[in-house]
């Protein structure tokens, strides 16, 4: 059985009122109109990835980073308070599979990759901030980039 994180969150933060998770009644859905092998795909991670000297994330931070799609592993850093980041720091592909996506574009599994990729720090308490501040900015980026689909990887 996969871990149930809602009760775990309640226990871990038992000093606080239980978190009110977003509850949606239905899912938006846009069917793919062409094979993924012909799509422009954007990579996004909520794992807190930064490129070179981009500013570090901090708590309640709804900012995002643009990561050049050709970024080298050595140019990437991780900051996130909500998960153990040692493995991501060692191999960023654990939460931000940028090298793997480049391989899939080269081998034709996906059409092409949007440049840049994006990352934010998902440990933000305020769902409203994500919905009203961060998400619209990412949507604008994806529209400007003519993305057909985006691949959002959580931590």
């Amino acid at each position, binding site marked *: 059985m*996969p*871990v*149930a*994180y*809602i009760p*775990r*969150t309640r*226990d*871990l933060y038992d000093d606080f009122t239980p978190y009110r*998770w*977003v*509850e*949606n*009644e*239905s*899912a*938006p*859905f*846009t*069917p*793919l109109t062409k*094979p*993924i092998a012909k*799509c422009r*795909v954007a990579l996004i991670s909520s*794992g807190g990835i930064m490129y*070179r*000297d981009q500013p*570090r994330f901090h708590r309640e931070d709804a900012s995002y980073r643009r990561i050049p799609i050709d970024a080298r592993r050595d*140019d990437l*850093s991780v900051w996130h*308070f909500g*998960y*153990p*980041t*040692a*493995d*991501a720091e*060692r*191999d960023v*592909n*654990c*939460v*931000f*599979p940028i*090298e*793997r*996506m480049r*391989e*899939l574009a080269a081998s034709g*599994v*996906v059409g092409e990759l949007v440049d840049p990729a994006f990352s934010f720090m998902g440990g933000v308490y305020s769902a409203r901030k994500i919905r009203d501040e961060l998400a619209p900015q990412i949507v604008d980026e994806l529209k400007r980039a003519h993305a057909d*689909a985006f*691949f*959002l*990887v*959580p*931590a």
Partner: protein
Amino acid sequence: MTSAIDITQSVTPPRAVFVNFPLGHQTGPPDQPDLQRRIVTDAMRAFETITTPATIVELPYVWDANDRSWEDIDYTKGWMPARPSRDAADKLEAERQAKFRRT
């Protein structure tokens, strides 16, 4: 992708793929590019195979067939290593900035 099925069932994104791995490893363990590539390829294929909104596809990969203890520890008190002090964190950040401005 999703790393927490119960939260995702509440939020209902259009489509999601899940691997039963510890938090922080949803696209695979470190230094295992073949497994990472299989996970990401399966996720790309799911764009084509998921046709019902809010579907969550679970992939069959196993973190460690001989040791499932992580499932009892993940996201419980004491699961995270101690965080650096404020001063230590500021120092690490200054070093990161200096490193990238030099190179």
